[in-house]
Every structure is written in structure tokens, then in C-alpha cells.
């Protein structure tokens, strides 16, 4: 009874959809050289986040050069004609700011958070390294060693890293999506300066990039600054985006298994292929967000927690999530529970859910919660910059970004049911076991 009341209270509180301003302060324009610019005006505090997102990622790694996109991310902190090695990060820190950089399958991004009166300073440096990067042979060699060490730490140094890499490869065979971002050690060790600079010249340019400025700055001021700093940089001929295999359904992929002494208890991860948000067509993705919450958000009332992780269930924990990897189910069997039995209980739970469908009141409640979190996230301007940049480098448009909260709010019981049937009923999944070294009673039975 309480659930029904609270769902009602929350929808009353949030008012009728659509929400007043799904993305307040959002503006977009482009320069003549192809640089896309997005401004998110938020004048509550005199600070800004600048991010430069490039439409290049590990999917663009040339054959035999896995990890090249990620390596370029590191090189971007090396000398340009104007700045010495490491000078950009030092200047940002001396001004009380912070910086970040990361590489994903389809994007490489660089960001600075800094006092608003110093935006011009960081924009000038960001434009400089878009076109003037000139790392010395010695610093390039040193950075190669850094990346190799990073690979060892992240992938070989933790059981999770190795497990995720194998799961991804099994889920996306023969696809750029199945490759690790960081690359293989042998190939990283072979990167030459000529190859790195060829990659840089092909992929780092105004027409491959999206500039996002979020915070206490006006759109006109950003336009003037962007014209001054990026306007003179010429575009490059666009390289074709890497092909993705059309057919990704591959039922019957054998399970993978990683054993490691550092794993405390057996853990099951099953990842289903699942569609991402698509330009103009975000309904199924929105339904999958709601489905993940319904099935396995971190709370005792989720479908999986009730079916699998209760007093008489097979699991200590049972969760679901939806990410760029796919739709993920995660299970930690109780001590003494056979792995095969735990997996069978998971399968039975899924079959029952596909048969019965979701509880409409629970869906209403989750939609309220999702809408609330969409409002709260507007409070974090740096995270707004992240979400916009990620969307625009994933083939979505600003209109998709603005529509997303309303698409989420409009998800119906039928949408969730259809998405569950499409994804969980497809048979297109990979199951992985992360296990302690000694075969434990709770491990898989095969």
C-alpha cells in the first residue's frame, strides 16, 4: 500500500510530464571548420568545465596497432611548439583547477575544470594541442613504458581487468567493440613516432571534435573565444568510421572462466547484447534503463533480490545494470550453492519474468525515481558536460539529449516487456565466471 501511495506522491510532486526544462541552458553551434560547440550555461558559481571530445577511439586503432588511440591520449600531454612536456597540467593545477582525459571505443576526451575567468587560458592550450603536438622521440619512448605499466596494472594486475577484457572479446568477436581500449603489450611496445603522428594528423582536427563548455559563461563569449582559438585550424579529410558487423546475435557462445587467487568468492556475470540509444529512437534504451532498475537495482525489493537473494534464495547478491557493454546480470552464489544450480535459478527467474511481465505499480514507482534522478543530475554541471559529449560522440544529436528525460518519463509497461523479450529472450549472451583459484564448492559444475 505504501508503494502505491508513494508512487502517486512522487508523480504529483514532479508534476505532469514533460519536465519544465529538460536541459536548461543548453546551446549548440558550429564553426566554419566543422568544430561543433555545445554550451551549457549555469551561472550559479564562477567556474567552468571545458571538455574537448574527439570522435576517435579504440575502434579506430589501425590493424597491428591496438591501443594507439589510448596512446595518443597520453601523448597529448607532451610538448607542443608552445608548451613543454607536462606544462598544460601544471598550469591548470597552478590555477587551482583540475584536469582529466580518457579513451573509450568511439571517443577520446580531454577536460579541465577551472575558475571561469581562466577559460580563455585553457581553451588556448586545448586548441594548441589539437594541431601543434610535437613530442620528442625520448618522451614518446618514456610514455610507451608508462602505458605498458598501466596495462599491467589495470588488466593483468587485477582479476576484474582480465575478466572484463575476455568477456568483452567473447561478446563482440570480430568487432572493434570487442577490443580492449588499452591495447596489447607487444603492439604498444612497437609504436613508432611516425605511426603515432600519422594517427594524430588523421584524427585530431576541428571537424572530428566537439567542444563542450559548461558553467558560468555566456554562449556569445564562448563563440568569440572558440573562433579565436580554434577558428584558424583547418579541417582534415574525414577517415571512414570503422565498420561494425551487422549481425551480432550469436546464441550459444560458450561460457568463459577466469580463476585468480585474489577472487574471494565465485561470481557470475552474464552480459546480453543490447541496443544503445539511437538517434531519434531512444525508446528501447529508455525501457532498458527502467528494466535494469526493476530487475536488479541495489535494493532488497528488486525482482532479482526477491527471487534470488532472499533468505531462501541461492545468492548473496543479485544485480542488473545496463551500460555500453550490454545488459548485465550479476550473481554471487551463497557459500555451498553449486554454480550450475545458481545459474539455473537465474534462468528460471528470467523465464518467469518474461512470462508474467513487470508489475505496473513498480514501473510507475521506478519512473518517478528515474525522473527524480534526471532532475538531480542537472545539479552537477561537469557531469552534464560528460553526458552531452558522450552522446554526441556516439551518434546522437542535441535533440536526442534534450528529449532523453521525456523519453524516460514516457516508458510504458509494454515498452519494458518488449525490451525484456528482445534482450533477455534473445539467447544472445555470454556468461562469465570469476572464480577463486582452488575449485570451490560454489563454483560451476561443468
Amino acid at each position: 500500500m505504501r508503494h502505491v501511495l508513494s508512487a502517486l506522491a512522487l508523480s504529483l510532486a514532479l508534476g505532469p510530464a514533460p519536465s519544465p526544462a529538460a536541459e536548461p541552458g543548453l546551446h549548440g553551434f558550429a564553426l566554419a571548420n566543422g568544430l561543433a560547440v555545445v554550451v551549457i550555461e549555469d551561472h550559479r558559481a564562477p567556474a567552468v568545465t571545458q571538455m574537448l571530445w574527439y570522435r576517435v577511439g579504440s575502434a579506430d586503432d589501425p590493424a597491428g596497432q591496438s591501443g594507439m588511440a589510448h596512446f595518443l591520449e597520453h601523448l597529448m600531454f607532451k610538448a607542443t611548439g608552445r608548451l613543454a612536456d607536462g606544462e598544460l597540467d601544471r598550469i591548470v593545477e597552478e590555477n587551482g583547477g583540475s584536469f582529466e582525459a580518457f579513451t573509450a571505443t568511439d571517443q577520446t576526451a580531454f577536460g579541465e575544470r577551472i575558475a571561469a575567468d581562466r577559460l580563455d587560458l585553457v581553451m588556448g592550450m586545448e586548441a594548441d594541442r589539437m594541431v601543434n603536438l610535437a613530442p620528442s622521440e625520448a618522451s614518446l619512448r618514456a610514455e610507451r613504458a608508462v602505458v605498458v605499466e598501466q596495462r599491467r596494472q589495470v588488466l593483468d594486475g587485477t582479476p576484474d581487468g582480465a575478466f572484463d577484457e575476455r568477456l568483452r572479446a567473447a561478446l563482440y568477436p570480430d568487432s572493434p567493440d570487442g577490443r580492449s581500449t588499452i591495447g596489447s603489450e607487444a603492439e604498444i611496445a612497437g609504436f613508432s613516432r611516425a605511426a603515432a603522428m600519422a594517427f594524430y594528423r588523421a584524427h585530431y582536427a576541428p571537424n572530428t571534435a566537439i567542444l563542450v563548455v559548461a558553467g558560468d559563461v555566456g554562449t556569445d563569449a564562448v563563440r568569440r573565444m572558440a573562433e579565436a582559438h580554434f577558428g584558424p585550424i583547418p579541417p582534415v579529410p574525414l577517415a571512414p568510421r570503422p565498420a561494425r558487423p551487422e549481425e551480432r546475435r550469436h546464441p550459444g557462445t560458450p561460457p568463459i572462466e577466469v580463476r585468480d587467487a585474489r577472487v574471494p568468492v565465485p561470481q557470475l556475470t552474464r552480459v546480453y547484447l543490447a541496443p544503445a540509444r539511437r538517434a531519434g529512437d531512444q525508446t528501447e534504451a529508455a525501457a532498458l534503463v527502467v528494466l535494469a532498475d526493476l530487475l536488479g537495482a541495489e535494493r532488497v525489493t528488486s525482482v532479482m533480490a526477491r527471487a534470488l537473494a532472499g533468505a531462501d534464495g541461492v545468492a548473496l547478491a543479485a544485480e542488473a545494470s545496463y551500460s555500453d557493454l550490454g545488459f548485465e546480470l550479476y550473481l554471487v552464489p551463497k557459500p555451498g550453492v553449486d554454480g550450475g544450480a545458481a545459474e539455473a535459478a537465474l534462468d528460471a527467474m528470467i523465464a518467469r519474468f518474461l512470462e508474467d511481465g513487470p508489475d505496473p505499480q513498480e514501473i510507475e514507482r521506478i519512473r518517478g525515481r528515474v525522473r527524480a534522478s534526471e532532475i538531480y543530475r542537472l545539479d552537477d554541471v561537469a557531469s552534464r558536460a560528460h553526458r552531452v559529449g558522450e552522446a554526441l560522440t556516439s551518434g546522437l544529436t542535441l535533440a536526442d539529449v534534450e528529449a532523453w528525460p521525456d523519453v524516460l518519463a514516457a516508458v510504458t509497461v509494454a515498452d519494458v516487456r518488449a525490451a525484456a523479450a528482445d534482450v533477455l529472450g534473445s539467447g544472445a549472451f555470454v556468461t562469465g565466471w570469476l572464480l577463486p583459484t582452488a575449485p570451490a564448492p560454489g563454483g560451476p559444475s561443468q
Partner: protein
Amino acid sequence: MIRALLLAIALGMAASNSAQAAIAIVPVTSPGGISAWLSEEHTIPILTIEASFLGGPALDAAGHEGTTALMADLLDEGAGGLDAQGFATALEDVAAGIRFAASPDDIRVSATMLSGTRDRVTELLRLALTEPRFDAEAVERLRAQTLAGIAQRDAEPQAEANLVFFAQAFPDHPYGRPTEGTAASVAAITAEDLRAAHTAALTREHLRIAVVGDITPGELGPLLDRVFGALPATGPSLPLVALPQLSGKTTVIDADTPQSVVIFGNAGIPIGDPDFIPAMLVNTVLGGGSLATRLGEEMRVKRGLTYGVNTGLASGQFGALYLGAFSSSNAHIAEAIGILRAEWRRMAGEGLSDAELAAAKRYLTGEFPLRFDGSGDIAEQLINLQLAGVDPDYVNRRSGLIEAVTAAEAARVARRLVQPAALTLVIAGRPQGIAPASALSR
């Protein structure tokens, strides 16, 4: 006591400044006479209310440490007709958050809500502030958590070094006693103690409020009266501001660890003191902030004696310290302390170079705006500024005040802040080559 340091460092930051747009803060007074600082913003339909009840654990009598902190932790564990579970569910149902926490100086209250749930959430906040239940189940659950935290604290050499340092600096003063209490004092707390602490600590006399977000001054006034109006008007007097008793002695606490932890410091600069801004610049150069500092350069970069060394202006409401900490292997501790003392003498004697002063100004004026990162952070800053005793527009004048500091002024304040003869150390570990004035065994 580490929290004391952190709180005060946050205050130190609050005293630096911004440059670009003005941060608009409007003082609002309710029909019932309750004041708040409001930062109004209607583009996002959320509201944050932050409040501070000055005094907090500093009101605990000797032997009763931890009573106010436990009381604060229990405010959202059942109130009015709702038990702990009921209160949590009621908040979850409206996607809102209410938190209470005790610092050495005050009790902090923080409530975040969607605009449309304002009436419901502020009613829950009123209940928690005015009608907490202190149910036996909740009291025992949180007492057990607190005792577990104290046991963990007592097992950590660094925490013990902190406690000993503060006990030396503030004898017979609440700052000399642990905010969260001792195992004995927490075990002895009764429900009556908690009710008495509630009546004493949550009064309108020592209340400061900051509100950020989707509300007008006209709407805020009646809300303030509704939430806070029923609290007692006055309470017990606050502790007196104490002058730290630091004579320059070195104390060693025996701990069987390969690394020694060192807490060091002098008397600090009180909140509201005109020397506070020059002192921030001195601290930034000597050992504060995340920049390259003199201590970092000499101890870490050049000699590898430690992974990190930090200093901060620990200026609380009832006393001020200039504090620092580092750890180093037992074999290297004497060398590290020698360098610390040499840098202390150099700063007291020379002050800052022009280049150092300029770099510190650039850092402090740039760092401050990033503290206002979202509603919760803005509200927290507005409370810190009120506690620092400044007016709302201060936030927009601070950059100018920092830029105006001269090298001569910085040198004068360096001599006041950095006192080599009074530099007091507490070391936990088995340091080699150190002759302590006093030794404690654990």
C-alpha cells in the same frame, strides 16, 4: 580531531575568492525572526537547506564526550510517528535526502529535495529536529557503530597522535577531548543524556541557515518559521575561545610500525583575524594546497623522505592551530624533522619571494570558485562564510583582498604564524635519533 583540521581547512578556503560572476546571496529574515542566507536559482527544480547549530560536541562536559555526536546521528533514526525504517522510507518515497553530522564545532544539517516535495520534506526535517524519538533499538545500533569506530580510531597511530596533540594544545577545553567520545564515555550515555543534549544543542540562538535553489525570499520566510520556529530560543553558553598551549616540545607515542606519523604545529590565526588572508598565502607556499610547496619540494621531491607533507590553517570557532602532518620511515624521521625545522626558520626569517607570492595568489583565487560545485557545496560554503563572520558580499570581494597582500605584509604574518621555537611535535612510531621531552606507551 582530524575532522577539526579538515573543517578548518575548508574555512580557510572559504576565505579566499572568486572573480567572474558575482555569487548572489540575499539575507532573508522570517516573520518569526529566523535568518538565512539565500542563493536563489529557479532553472533547476531542486532545493537544498543547510543549517549549523554552533557549539555541538563542544558543549559536552568532560567525561561525557560523544553524547552530542551520538544525538546528532540519531536525529534521522526515528521522529514523531515514524520509526527509523519509517523515516528512511518516507524520504525514499519522495526521492529526498536529510543528513545530520557533528563536527567539533557544530551540528550540521543538510536537506536536499525536489521543489515539488518541499512541504513533505521540510515537515520530515521539522520532525527530526524537534521530535526525535531516540528509540532504544536505534540508540543501541548507533552506539555499537560508534564504539566500533572508536575501537578502529584507537588502533590507528595517526589518530592517537592527533588526540595527543589536541589534548596538549587545549588542556581543560572541549577541543582537547575527542568529538566522538571514548569507549567508556559512549558506553555510559543514557536516553536522558541524549534528550538533554538535544535540548541544549539545537537552539535558535546558535543557528545559521543557508538555502540554495528553487524558492523565493517570500516563500522561504514562513518555511523557516515552520521548520525551526519550535526549537528553544536559547541554550547553555558556548565554550570560551582558547589560546593553544604549545611550548615546542616533542612527544613520542610508542607504536610498533615501520613508519612514524608526525603531527606538528603552532598556534594559528583565529577566524575573523585581519591576518587570515596573508596567512593563507604563507601556508600555500609552505605546505598547503596541492601546489608544489617548500616542504614538499625539500622533503619529498629532493630527498624522498615522505610521500606527502601537508599543512593547514585549522581555525575553529573556539581556538586556532597551524597544523601539519607527514609520515616517514623510522630511520629517516630525524632527517625529515631537521628539514621541517629548517624550513620553519627560513619562512619565519624570509617570508615569501615575489614569485611565490604571485603563484599563491593565482592558486587561491582560482581554486575557490570550484568549491561552489552544485547546490550542496554552495550551501555548505554559505554556512562556512556565516561562521567566519563575514557579510554576504565578502565572497565577491575576496579576490581583491588576496591580490592586495604585499610581500612585506606576508613576511610580517609569516613571523607571527610560523614560530620555530614553539614548533610542537607528536610522533607515533619508533623513530630513530629523536630525544622526546615526553614518551607515551600505547
